[in-house]
């Protein structure tokens, strides 16, 4: 599904504070599987996730999404790939304050155009599916942590992406909600979606849902299980 070849991401290139966040990573993320990246803080999980999710271009190396080479795509093509192929869930959920839950879910679909009515129905359906349908008219800043996360997941799914990318999705959740999140992940995988999670939460990488755990340190992959 997604193939990385000798990928590097360097910040402040050529300056004294040059920093190699991802250092020569080669990785094949298989479709319809749950992959977890783990490692200590600063090991480059988020940076790698950004490369996988087409949010940033690698300084060198190649990335294929499906059979498409995305490394040197102009930004608007990358954005196009990003919004059609990936759904994102962030550590702080990052809902837009002041907009309702429903509007937040609809946001990723705006650049695609398409009928508004159909979009509202789709977004409401996703909210219903995750049990927050009754909160659809509530403003994002009034939602509880668990609700906010469900809305964020609904938003990630609104363009029906093949891949879900999540960065520390359980950091702000208690154990019960975290376990609930992993159940949702299982359901997504069973629909045939690919899930990539960066996390150092044991509830995540010890979960039975996870197919593969990749361990990182100093920007490199130091271990894989199984």
């Amino acid at each position: 599904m997604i193939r990385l070849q000798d990928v590097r991401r360097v910040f402040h290139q050529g300056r004294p504070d040059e920093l190699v966040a991802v250092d020569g990573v080669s990785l094949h993320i298989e479709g319809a599987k749950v992959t977890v990246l783990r490692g200590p803080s600063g090991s480059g999980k988020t940076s790698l996730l950004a490369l996988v999710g087409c949010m940033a271009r690698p300084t060198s190396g190649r990335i294929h999404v499906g059979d498409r080479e995305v490394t040197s795509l102009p930004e608007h093509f990358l954005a196009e790939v990003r919004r059609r192929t990936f759904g994102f869930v962030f550590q702080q959920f990052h809902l837009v304050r002041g907009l309702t839950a429903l509007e937040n879910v609809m946001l990723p679909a705006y650049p695609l155009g398409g009928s508004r009515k159909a979009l509202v129905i789709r977004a409401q359906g996703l909210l219903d599916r995750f049990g927050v349908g009754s909160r659809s008219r509530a403003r994002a800043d009034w939602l509880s942590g668990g609700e906010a996360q469900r809305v964020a997941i609904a938003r990630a799914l609104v363009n029906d992406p093949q891949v879900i990318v999540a960065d520390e999705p359980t950091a702000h959740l208690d154990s019960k909600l975290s376990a609930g999140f992993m159940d949702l992940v299982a359901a997504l995988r069973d629909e045939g979606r690919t899930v990539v999670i960066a996390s150092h939460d044991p509830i995540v990488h010890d979960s039975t849902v996870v197919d593969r755990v990749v361990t990182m340190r100093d920007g490199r992959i130091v271990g894989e299980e199984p």
Partner: protein
Amino acid sequence: MILHPSVLALVGSALLVGALLVYSAFWGARIVQSWDLSSGSELQLALERRTHLISTLLGYVLVFGLASLFLFVFTADSLAPLFTGAMCAAGSLHASRYGYPTLLLQIGGFALAAIWLIVNRADSLGYDYPLVRFKYRFLLALTPVLLAETALRAAYFLDLKPEVITSCCGSLFGSGGRGFGSDLAGLPPSLAGGVFVALLLGAIGAGMVFRISGRGGWLLGALSALSLPVGLAAVVSWLSPYVYELPTHHCPFCLLQGEYHWIGYPLYAALLGGSLTGAGVGVLMPFRSIPSLDVELPAYQRRLAGWSVALLTGLGLLVGWIVATSHLRTS
């Protein structure tokens, strides 16, 4: 120097837009120099970001250019009472030797900026910035033209002296006098009109053929590019007497006045829009063989051709209507 509010508006906005252009050109030069798509270096990323800024700026340059083109004519028009003998824009433009060159350069600059935006759009259709070097070389060539226009415009207003004795449009665009205007007006009207109508029909035909079969893009480009200057000349020598219903009145500016139902606005808009979209098709022809554009570019050209056909047809209908309903009798 004349301290007219719209003179201030024209000169001030030209300076602002000029500053934007210099800034764009600076980054354009860096892009031409250091562009390397295969690199993910921070310089390359920064350059790619600049491309967004430059396209946005050029878009605004185009909009403001159009607004100031009209305002320039209006201003010249309203300054006319300051000059002995001037009765409309034609006379005030004649009152300084920079007047007509400014106007022509303004039209030319507008046309080039529009073509640039068409090329820019085409470039964004390919996944590997296929036209990036061409586009920014073009920008580097375009900038001096637009800057020269800014300078000429300022020089024109500085040069204007209210005491100057000039001529009214009747003598400037009359067939008896000498000079560019009267040369235009002195063209045999039936010849100018005939050539224009033939070009227009040719361009519309070529546009339809291109839209349907994707062939003949060069022809469409050439015919519609030609129809801009020929169209302007034909308005002076052939069409305007039909509007004024006076065989000797050839002024291209009075068309913009309420007296003549502002007929000049749709007329010039359709002429500019139709000919520039058509010319854009031609400009893009050499790039059809680029692999990353082989699907998208022809489709884009077809859309351009569609616009061109629509606008030129509108223009043709408008011209036909003017001629048909005019009480001017040609002997």
